[in-house]
């Protein structure tokens, strides 16, 4: 069909696989190295670190973060952000909690579905403000962060849900171990796997990357960016709704300040996991590693007996170090090209 080949692009990239190349292809490598160093260092000082019990503990502590970080990742991939997730969790936990305590005999699955539905409505509200109202995502969800939290206060009228008001089966939703591992961990990994498949192997999932990478081009390619954006906020609300029920189950209570500040943890997990805040870049394995890193940091600070009051500071510092070193590595990669 062609008479001659074009000369452009003839130079096939050199197949030089050095360490930097590896870093550039798989940003996750950086976090793995960081985690490895941390694990070795901590287990030298605290042998109890590498026990099954402790590892289960770590996973248990980051499970809800993983679930919500999946939602957060999808949103950030489109170039947005959802700061309202923590208030959605708080509101859903409160509403489901009161419903369960006032109406005995509600099956667990109904409670879960109720939570998901409530979360989806809240997410739809976010999505509509952003897509129809053209409010920048950070502003819109900052607004709903306080709106939904305010609804929590209004709804609870100063009361809260205690452990004894909840049916035992709901508590076991997260803590039961029919498979030897607490359900919550399995649910988290399941959600992560589903999100991975969704993002990697469905057209809609690929469209999420496309919209975040270049929304105008997406429009030209027949993708409707506004619909994709609406979708990710609905999904984010839906998943946060599920997380709300799980929160209720895990902590056996719903309070006005449940999950307060949790939104930044989920953003941190995604960002540390290599998701670019400008959209289009990031993978689920990376985010899982990011969440794991946060969990290990939290856990090891306790194990090596750093005063609980300094733990938050150490955590913040390590996040900064992780982000800065990632940046310095990618700078080196650019320079070596």
């Amino acid at each position, binding site marked *: 069909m062609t008479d001659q080949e074009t000369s452009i692009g003839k130079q096939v990239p050199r197949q030089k696989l050095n360490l930097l190349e590896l870093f550039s292809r798989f940003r996750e490598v950086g976090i793995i190295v960081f985690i490895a160093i941390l694990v070795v260092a901590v287990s030298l000082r605290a042998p109890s670190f590498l026990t099954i019990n402790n590892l289960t503990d770590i996973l248990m502590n980051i499970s809800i973060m993983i679930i919500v970080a999946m939602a957060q990742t999808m949103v950030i991939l489109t170039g947005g952000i959802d700061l309202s997730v923590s208030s959605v969790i708080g509101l859903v936990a409160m*509403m489901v909690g*009161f*419903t369960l305590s*006032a109406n005995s005999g509600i099956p667990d699955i109904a409670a879960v579905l109720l939570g998901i539905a*409530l979360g989806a*409505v*809240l997410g*739809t*509200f976010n999505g*509509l*403000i952003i897509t*129809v*109202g*053209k*409010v*920048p995502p*950070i*502003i*819109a969800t*900052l*607004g*709903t*962060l*306080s*709106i939904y*939290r*305010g*609804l*929590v*206060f*209004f*709804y609870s*009228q100063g*009361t809260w849900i205690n452990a004894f008001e909840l049916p035992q089966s709901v508590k076991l939703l997260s803590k039961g171990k029919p498979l030897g591992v607490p359900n919550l961990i399995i649910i988290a990994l399941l959600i992560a796997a589903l999100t991975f498949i969704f993002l990697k192997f469905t057209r809609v999932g690929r469209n999420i990357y496309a919209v975040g990478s270049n929304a105008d081009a997406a429009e030209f390619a027949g993708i409707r960016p506004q619909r994709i954006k609406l979708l990710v906020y609905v999904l984010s609300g839906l998943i946060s709704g599920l997380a709300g029920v799980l929160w209720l189950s895990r902590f056996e209570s719903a309070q*006005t300040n449940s999950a307060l*500040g949790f939104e*930044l943890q989920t*953003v*941190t997990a995604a*960002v540390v996991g290599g998701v670019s*805040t*400008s959209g289009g870049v990031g993978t689920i394995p990376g985010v899982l590693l990011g969440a794991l890193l946060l969990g290990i940091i939290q856990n090891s600070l306790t194990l090596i007996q750093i*005063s609980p*009051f*300094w*733990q*938050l*500071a*150490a*955590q*913040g*510092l390590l*996040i*900064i170090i992780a*982000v*800065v070193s990632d*940046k*310095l590595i990618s700078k080196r990669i650019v320079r070596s090209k």
Partner: protein
Amino acid sequence: MKSQANPQNTSAATISERATRRSLTDVFKNWELLLVVLIIIVVLVNTRLSPYFLNAKNISRTSSDFMEIGLMMLPMVFIVVTGNIDLSVASNMGMSASFMGLLHNMGVNIWLAALAGLALGTLGGVLNGYLIAKVKLPSLVVTLGTYAFFRGIAYGFLGDQAARNYPAKFTYLGQGRVGGSLIPVSVAIFIGLAIIFGIILHATKFGRHLYAIGNNEEAAKYSGVPIDKIKFSLFVISGFMAAFAGLVLAARFGSTRPDNGTGLELAVITATVLGGVDIDGGKGSMYGAVLSLLLIGLLRFGMGLVNIQSQVQSTIIGLLLIVSIFLPHIGQRIAANKATRFRWKTVLAVVGIIALFVLFFVFFFWSRAPVLAEI
């Protein structure tokens, strides 16, 4: 296709020195006008609802409640105009105040302790500025990290303790009045600083550079605007002001706890954006931001008088923030879409969504019927 000429000026052969068409300033005047109208409405409604609203003493007492937000808002306007954000301000405030409290507890002279607090806050700003301007990390990511870091240091300093018993000379900063008047000291300081920050933003080279960076950072760089220096100095100023706000808060409460000011960064950003400062940078004015602070203050004051919980007040402020950006867009869309054809699909979607929200609130009230019925 950007090189395509705008049809409206191909015919204009000459150029005039004066503006003939709507210019930037006109658009903003509309926004600020809207804020003024809202303020008037709030004052009128509140005056009707509560006889205590227009009481000078009440207003004087309440006004100082918003000065920490205001003090942090001033540099935030600068930062947002350049298209950046500082999420760490409230944590920095807590850190600086806690450091001062720690030193005070150790018996250090209060003024020395305050100075040290200011220095630490400024240092926090230096860290932010360095990571953003030199390491070139996005400000959202950096300040998200220092948000946790600074708050953590605050807890590290004071743990579950509080610092109290500040001398009266110091608490004057947060509780005192200027001379014999009703004007709180903190309000006077805020007004003075707001004027200075406003002048810097609107009438100086530095301010012009901020807008240039916010609109097109690359082009600003090519035109010799010292981007890195400016960004660095913005975050240093923000750190200093956050620390100062921390001192004012400590003086007002007469004590310091490490969780002081938690969540205030959102209030600061809300005030900034409601004031018409574009979160994407390049647009906004200082008087808009000050007006929005006034609006938020009056609104909260009024709601407090009619006994609305403060967290529920946040809901209303959040709603106001969204509606203020939402409504103009909806109006434009409706105006632009007049000609487009009627579609059943759209109607169905709208009805469906409304039904969804109605259902949500039906459940919301039904599930709490016994309690919510009482109010």
